[in-house]
C-alpha cells in the first residue's frame, strides 16, 4: 500500500467550488464593487512594480480572492508596494489599489479573530 501514499499525501489539484471561502471576497465587494468587472487582461501585472522584481502577480491576487484561497492570499498580498500603477492602466477602471488594501484589512481582521494563523 506504500506505493499509493501519494494519493493521500498530496492535496487534490482540483478546484473545488464547494470549498471556496468567500468571506474575504464578500467583504471586498461590499466596499469596492468595481472588482466584479475584471476581465483578466493582465495590464495590471505588466505594469506592476513589485511584479517585475518578484514573483508577485497582482492579477492572480484577484483570482485567489475569487477562489477563496485565503491562506495563499495572505502571503502574496504582502508583496504589493501600493504604487497604484495597476489602477492607472486598468481598462475596466477597477480601483485595484483599494482592492489590495481591503484584502489586507480583511486578512488583519480574520487574524485578530484567530481564524487565520
Amino acid at each position: 500500500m506504500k506505493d499509493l501514499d501519494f494519493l493521500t499525501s498530496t492535496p487534490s489539484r482540483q478546484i473545488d467550488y464547494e470549498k471556496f471561502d468567500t468571506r474575504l471576497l464578500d467583504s471586498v465587494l461590499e466596499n469596492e464593487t468595481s472588482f466584479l468587472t475584471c476581465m483578466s487582461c493582465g495590464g495590471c501585472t505588466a505594469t506592476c512594480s513589485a511584479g517585475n522584481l518578484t514573483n508577485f502577480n497582482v492579477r492572480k491576487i484577484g483570482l485567489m480572492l475569487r477562489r477563496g484561497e485565503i491562506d495563499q492570499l495572505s502571503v502574496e498580498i504582502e508583496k504589493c508596494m501600493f504604487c497604484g500603477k495597476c489602477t492607472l492602466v486598468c481598462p475596466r477602471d477597477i480601483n485595484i489599489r483599494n482592492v489590495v488594501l481591503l484584502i489586507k484589512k480583511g486578512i488583519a481582521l480574520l487574524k485578530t479573530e484567530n481564524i487565520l494563523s
Partner: protein
Amino acid sequence: MMNKPRHIAVIGGGIAGMETASRLAQAGYKITLIEKERITGGHLTQWSHLFPDSSDPAIVVSRLSSALSHQNIKVITSTEITDISKNGQYFNLKSGSEMSLNADAIVVTSGFHLFDASRKEEYGYGLFDNVLTSADLELMMKNEKPIRTASGKKPRRIAIIHCVGSRDAKAGNTYCSKVCCITGIKQAIELNKRLPECEIFCFYMDLRLYGSSFDGLYLTAQQKHKVQFIRGRLSEAAEKPDKSLQIKAEDTLSGRPLRMDVDMIILLVGMEPGISHNNFSRNGSVQLDENGFLKCKDVHAARNLTTQTGIFMAGTCICPMSVSETLENARSAALEVINYFERKM
C-alpha cells in the same frame, strides 16, 4: 405607386449612404445625397484590403459610385449638415447659411470616426516614430509603399495591439469595436506576405472572430503565416535609442510579465460615433445610445428607425459594422423607408 415622387435626404456619402441612395432611387424616389468630404466613398477610399477575402475596397466603392449616377440622385459634396428641423410635413436641412433643402424623410448615414490613438499616451502614438495605427498601415499598403521602419529598415518583428480605444473605460469606450480583431489578423497575414522573415505577434484580450469565415482566417494566420498570439493587454511602450520599441504586457496564460523588443507597433484603433451625430442630437429630436451611437427605436424590430419618425439610419452610425454588414444594413434601411411611405399612402 405615388403621384409626386417623394424626396429623401441621405446624410453621409460613405458606403452606407451610397447603397441606401441607389436602392431608393431604383425604387422611384428622388434622393439628395450630402457628403461633407470632397468625394464619396468614406473611409473605404483610404483602405487597402477587405477581410475576409483580401479584396480591393475600390471595387466596392466603384460599383456604388456608378450606381449613384442614377437620374433620381443628386450628390452634393463638401457640405456638412448643421441643422435639421421639422417644418410641417417636411424636414428642413441646413448647412450653415449656404444651403437649405426640404425632404419628406431623412436617412442618416454619418458613419464613424477612428479612435485617436494619441489619447492612449502610454502606447506612444505620435511620440514614437515606429508606432502606427491600423489605418496608417492600410494607407501604406494602398499606396504600395514597402513596409519599412521610420529609418527605412525592414522590420524583423512587429507587434499588433488589439483593443486600442475599445473595451477601455480609461479611453471612455467600454464597447467592443468588433471588426478590429479580424482586421488585425488580416493585417498580420498581409504583413507576412510582404515581409516573410518578419515575426508577427498579436497581443489580444479576447479574439472576437464573429464572422462565419473569420476563424478560418485565424487558422490560416497560424498555419501558413506563423502569426503568434499572446493573451495580454499592452500596458506601455517605450522607445529605445535606436528607435525600436520595448513593450510590456502580461503573458496571462503563463501568468508572468513579458517584455519584448519590436521594430514596429500596429495599434488596432476602434470605431467611435461620428462627430456629426451631435448635429442631429442637439435639439433632442434624435437620441443617442449609451455608447454615443444613434439610438434605434427597437433593437430587434426597428434597427433602422431613429427615435424620430421620418428619420432613418444605416451603417456605422448605429454601431461598429463590417463592410458587408453596412451594405446589408443600408439595403434594409431602404426597405424601411419604402414601407414608411407605402403605409402613408
